[in-house]
């Protein structure tokens, strides 16, 4: 019950309403690394993460993984295929051991008809997801992102004392105006073409000319 009170879908609901919804919930667990669902499969349920975390990703035909988000406790996934009736639009993998609460599609329809407040909460959740995805779409002009990341590596900011401060991937993302996941992919791509080498906490520029070419 405490968990239900905390999730956005159930915001503003009373104890009796939460108790009714609780009857529809089933529990599912997964070990670290388990694939919870695959892109393209039929979506049977909406899931909420109770403990642990899962990553949402798509895989290209070349086998490259694009992470679309990390879902942590009290957040949900499968909202889109459940509401639009299509297949799973992403694959889901457990990043840690996870406990999930699920609601089957047909049971969700009963809940939405019985408690209109839930429908309003669903709209807010979907709107928030849409905002995140629009931002990611902006970043998917990958060529521009890799160029910006290459520039940052060529000319990292100075710290005022003549030194070069260390940068996290989040720092580089903020500087490049992109998402952390895109910086990670850019670094991997730059390593693949031989411009840099990732050596634990060091980014080693191995070929400045290639890096300059990527920077444009």
């Amino acid at each position: 019950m405490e968990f239900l009170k905390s999730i956005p879908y159930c915001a503003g609901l009373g104890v009796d309403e939460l108790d009714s919804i609780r009857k529809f919930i089933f529990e599912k667990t997964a070990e670290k690394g388990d694939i919870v669902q695959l892109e393209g499969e039929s979506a049977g349920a909406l899931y909420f993460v109770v403990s642990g975390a899962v990553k949402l990703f798509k895989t290209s035909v070349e086998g490259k993984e694009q992470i679309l988000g990390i879902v942590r406790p009290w957040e949900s996934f499968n909202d889109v295929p459940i509401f639009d009736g299509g297949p799973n639009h992403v694959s889901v993998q457990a990043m840690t051991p996870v406990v999930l609460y699920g609601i089957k599609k047909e049971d969700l329809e009963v809940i939405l008809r019985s408690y209109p407040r839930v429908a309003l909460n669903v709209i807010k959740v979907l709107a928030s997801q849409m905002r995140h995805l629009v931002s990611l779409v902006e970043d998917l002009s990958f060529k521009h992102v890799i160029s910006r990341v290459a520039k940052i590596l060529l000319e990292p900011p100075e710290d005022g004392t003549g030194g070069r401060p260390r940068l996290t991937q989040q720092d580089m993302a903020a500087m490049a105006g992109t998402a952390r996941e895109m910086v990670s992919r850019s670094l991997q791509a730059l390593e693949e073409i031989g411009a840099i080498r990732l050596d634990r906490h060091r980014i080693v520029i191995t070929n400045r000319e290639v890096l300059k070419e990527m920077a444009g």
Partner: protein
Amino acid sequence: MFEMPEIYQEKCNGCGLCVSVCGCKALVLVNNIISIIETEECDWCTQCEAICPTGAISCPFEIVEELWEPE
């Protein structure tokens, strides 16, 4: 001393997600606050930084240039 990710304990909410995702057992919760164990197994995967919801873990990169001598 072996370079390890930076921990900001004042930001840690004790959720333990980083401990679960770490593949080299470098992270441990002590009194519900994250601590780090120095280990050469840490390959700087940055998964702990990515999964932390509060920014309590940081994996900064040092950008250096490889020096090479012509043959």
